[in-house]
């Protein structure tokens, strides 16, 4: 039996992905990219679940992972629908234009 990847590694990777995604959300001004960054964050959670399920030795984590994938997909769907609507309304998909609500 080959030795498994130590949990710490996948944990660190997950954290890295999470913060990269977060940084993307904060920095990128393009809605599509923002949505992608969110996907990244969700997937970091997925990685964590899978690694953890391997670690703790039951499949609940993988079940969870599959749920999350679905949820991420829905989110992407809704998000993209909105992006299209935004594009129709404002002619582009830059977040700077979404400043009407403020104060």
């Amino acid at each position: 039996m080959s030795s498994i990847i130590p949990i710490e590694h996948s944990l660190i990777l997950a954290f890295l992905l999470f913060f990269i995604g977060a940084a993307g959300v904060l920095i990128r001004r393009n809605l599509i990219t923002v949505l992608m960054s969110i996907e990244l964050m969700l997937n970091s959670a997925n990685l964590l679940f899978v690694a953890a399920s391997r670690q703790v030795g039951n499949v609940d984590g993988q079940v969870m992972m599959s749920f999350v994938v679905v949820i991420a997909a829905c989110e992407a769907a809704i998000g993209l629908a909105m992006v299209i609507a935004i594009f129709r309304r404002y002619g582009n998909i830059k977040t700077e234009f979404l400043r009407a609500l403020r104060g």
Partner: protein
Amino acid sequence: MIWMVLAFPLLGALLNGFLLPRRSKFLSHGVAVAAVGSAFLCACSVFLDFFAARRPQLHFGFEWLRAGKFVAPFELAVDQLSGLMILIITGIGTLIHIYAGGYMKEEETTYRFFAYLNLFIFMMLLLVLGNNLLVMFVGWEGVGLCSYLLIGYWFQEEANAKAGMKAFLVNRIGDIGFLIGIFLTFRHFGTVSFTELSSWINLMTTLPDPYPKAIFWITLSFFIGACGKSAQLPLYVWLPDAMAGPTPVSALIHAATMVTAGIFMMTRMSFFYYAAPDTMLIVAFVGAFTALFAATIALVQTDIKKVLAYSTVSQLGYMVLACGVGAFDAGVFHLLTHACFKALLFLGAGSVIFAMHHEQDMRRMGGLRKHLPITHAVMLIGVLAIIGVPGFSGFFSKDEILWKAFIFPTYGPILWGVGFLAAGCTAFYMVRLLCLTFYGPSYQDPHAHHHHHEPHETPWYMWAPLVILAFLSVAVGYLGVPDFLAHLVGGRNLFASYLEGLVYIPTSARSAWTHLHAEHAHSLEWGLMLTSVAWVTLAAGTAVFCYVNRPVRGIAGFLGAHFPRVHQLLLDKYRVDECYQQKIVTPLAEISTFLWQLFDVRILNGCVNWVGYLLMGTSGIASFRMTGSLHRYGFWVLAGTVGILVFSCF
């Protein structure tokens, strides 16, 4: 019966004030006179009852006020003092009411006048009859109110309204003294009833210290009250201004009755004052100096009523002096005589003013003798009485006071000397008044709108009271002939013996007042009497010499030429009013404005508002920072998360 005495004036006041039709002057006058007159009759019968019984009578009405340990029944006491006082008040009151009917003929709203006047009589009666400090205080401030209303009777002139207000406020200062006196009394004796208090004082022989500090303070605070009401230094300032009221008011309130309330009150509480020699000394000196002070001012005044006003202050000074030297009976006696002749003088002056169509400046008068024979006659009697010509009432009362002052162990001669000087001044200015008004050529202002018709004698119902008063101001004197004179005809001082039961020295204080009953050489007494007579004659003579058949300028010029400063100072009444105004009233007004406009509006209110402004302002800024940027929001979410994680893990 005693209740009737109170009820009639009150009824008259209510009828005139609220119920009766207001057009008919005759009706209102009649009602008022009837009210006081019947009160007088009742008072007479009350007095006779008392005189027959010769025992103080208490009349319990109802329990007026009870709170905690404090009880104040509505209780009236008829004794030597109050019996006498109700006679004076209702008697002279009646005369003045009759007179006023004529004097106020031209007035539109006589009902108001007579309502006030009746109310005053009621309050004054309450003051003198009340058997405890609280009821007395009700009357005490009640008369103040009436005097306020009556001084301001002609309210259309700003000045009158101001004068009335001044009177009320200065009196209020005194009233606070009175109040504090009540508080102290209640604190130390637990009661405010005169009967109980006097018995307390008798118990005080048992105390180690015969003159406890408490009594000093009590008497002092009550004396402050007396200063306010009886126009003594330094609170006399309201009385001269009070002459703004109609002359009958000046006669009744500001000469005969109300202003003597202070003396009355001190006499009522003589047992206290005997037990506080320190206060007595203060009282004596204040009285003496007030007498002189006011007399000097009266020397140069030209307004006939002002002269009489200052003379009143001066005479009140005599009475206070009498109280101060422990001769309460003499004080009350002078109160009685003064009530008669000063009322007479004021009413006389009123007739003059009436005849001169409300001209009050003596320099515009003169030679009125032929126009107003009766008035002249009675005024002459009044003047003789007040300056103390032997045989007239003033002589007996004033000399008694001077004598008692002289034998006062501490500073007696000084007190006597001051009083003596004041007597001279009195003689001078009263004679001056007489001369300027009635003798010599007429100095009527030819440009006055009414120069074409001559001044004429007043109707009978105005001079009749004068005649009666004139008679009284001669006759009353013989009630109080000093013992050493009375002995000549085998009599004794009726008045003193009448008051004996009332004015008694508590056992604890006997030692300090032995001189009052000590025997003195008659020669000394004779000597003093003759001296004062001579001195008065001298002063009167000078006045006659200066003023009869001389242009007024003469003496005025004479004084002005030689002592212009003094003359001006006297004319300005020593500038006391100005001093008060500038030292007390103006600063207070400034403080008040400052407190309002700066402290209250800016600082206190500002602080409260400032909190609101701060919140609003910062909130505005903060909400401006909500830029609506997606990324900024995201940053807050993540930063919040990380921050909290860090915060709670470490």
